[in-house]
């Protein structure tokens, strides 16, 4: 026992340095958090301060003038909407089919499931400029679509597909197995169970997947530069070229001297749309929680 006491840590220095380490760490971490919050505020406030003056309903409804320095962004909004429509029209059926297959029809560990999942994982990491190259080569040149809303939308569809598949697969997997058993007990085929039970139950989750994909597509610019192009006219068909909000910001800021004002205003519109989407997913999420009573 005496030897034990000799080795006891009680003999160690009375005020251990750990307290100082603790305080230092706390100070550093709080400083970083303040910095990050400060930068976000800086970005948002800077946009609002310079952009709000140009913003009004005329800005949303008018055509741009003087290379975009004056006027509004009506054709840009229209193009953005059209490209999104093409993107969703392609990505949703393809993605939903993949998600249904992965969650309902094949085993998680099967070779095909692994292959699909791995491929989508890699696809999710592909840089957007590479999507742009791909879309330019395949849709614009090989398919002869030229710079067009359709080519841009298809390119974006490829880009948001992994995100959409993963999120909707998760939504389907979250449906309790009881429903599947109940459907099987009624003698429904698995497809009938999917169509009439699982999809309706998973619908809020699938909507979240959809909204997330829209957000990703809205924020994208690099993949569109050489697929949908940067023409500022109002598109008359899917074969016309057109620019989205993100590209409009880029073009005004980089290539139009004196375009900053409208670039600010467009950036606010873009950020506002993304915020709405953020809010949308939160609301859908809340709705799910309420419905399942969790």
């Amino acid at each position: 026992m005496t030897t034990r006491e000799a080795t006891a840590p009680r003999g160690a220095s009375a005020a251990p340095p750990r307290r100082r380490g603790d305080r230092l760490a706390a100070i550093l971490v709080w400083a970083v958090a303040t910095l990050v919050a400060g930068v976000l505020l800086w970005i948002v406030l800077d946009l609002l301060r310079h952009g709000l003056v140009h913003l009004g309903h005329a800005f949303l409804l008018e055509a741009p003038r003087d290379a975009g320095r004056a006027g509004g962004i009506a054709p840009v909004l229209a193009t953005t909407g059209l490209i999104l429509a093409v993107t969703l029209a392609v990505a949703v059926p393809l993605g939903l089919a993949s998600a249904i297959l992965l969650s309902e029809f094949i085993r998680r560990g099967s070779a095909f499931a692994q292959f699909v999942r791995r491929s989508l994982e890699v696809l999710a990491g592909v840089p957007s400029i590479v999507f742009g190259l791909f879309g330019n080569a395949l849709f614009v040149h090989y398919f002869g679509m030229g710079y067009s809303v359709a080519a841009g939308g298809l390119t974006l569809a490829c880009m948001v597909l992994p995100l959409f598949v993963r999120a909707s697969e998760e939504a389907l997997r979250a449906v309790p197995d009881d429903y599947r058993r109940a459907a099987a007990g009624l003698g429904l085929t698995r497809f009938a169970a999917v169509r009439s039970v699982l999809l309706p139950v998973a619908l809020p989750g699938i909507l979240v997947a959809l909204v997330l994909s829209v957000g990703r597509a809205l924020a994208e610019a690099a993949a569109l530069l050489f697929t949908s192009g940067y023409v500022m006219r109002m598109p008359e068909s899917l074969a016309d070229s057109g620019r989205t909000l993100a590209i409009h910001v880029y073009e005004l800021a980089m290539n139009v001297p004196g375009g900053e004002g409208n670039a600010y205003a467009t950036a606010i519109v873009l950020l506002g749309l993304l915020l709405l989407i953020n809010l949308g997913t939160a609301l859908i999420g809340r709705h799910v929680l309420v419905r399942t009573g969790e």
Partner: protein
Amino acid sequence: MSPARTERAVVWSLRGAALAAAAIVGLIVALLLVESIPAIRNLALRLVTDSGWYPAPAATDGSFRITPMVVGTLLITAGAVVIAAPLGLASALFCRFFAPPGVAAIYRRLVELLAGIPGVIYGFWGLVVLVPLISALRPPGASVLTAIVVLALMILPTVALLSESALRDVPQRHLQAAAALGLSRWGTIAGVALPAARSGIVTAVILATGRAIGETLAVVMVVGNIVQIPSSLLQPARALTGNIALEMGYASGDHRSALFFSGLILLVLVMLLTALAAWLRGDEHDHA
């Protein structure tokens, strides 16, 4: 059709759709390879040995040294990761261990918001706010350093959110054991939480690195885009991604092919990083 046959038809069409989705990535690689062939055949080592980057549609008319762009990309990426990794990790620690619950929830929302801001807006902010600031320090302002700061801000939320989820996965009983031993907060973090969450945090940094390599417009808007190997962080440079964005609009022939080849380089870099992250994650599952 009988229900069983309908079902079989449905499953096969679903398989077809999934196959198509999975095939996209293969198609991308194949197309990039095919489009790069002229560059590989006509330029090959000239991509490194040529005197500069003065591209022309025919290989013989121009010079095609892409080394400065590769260096630019690596430099900007490395700088951004070096800044974003510690700050992102500190953000995650703040949420998990230091902030009162209410503050942590608000702060997490804020970081998610940062994660949702498009690259174009980061680039625009960098152009109108940071470039003049750094220009006051030393002109021209649009420089490697500006790009590093903008990119670091962009990937910081990725590091923060993924590290935080890794830290959250550290079992509660480890933290309880640490408390029962009277370990200090920092002792618990450094000795228990960080080692336990290590692979998740490393994965977070790797994925953020992938994002940084691939980011295009935010970098184009603030880096100055001059083709040179910068001798200081305050000089302008050009990134691989930016090079594609700036020149694809008018490129043709071997020039266009060289741009596809640089896209291929980017793709390979990012795929290697993704594979590394997947491998680390698999490694983790083996331990569990």
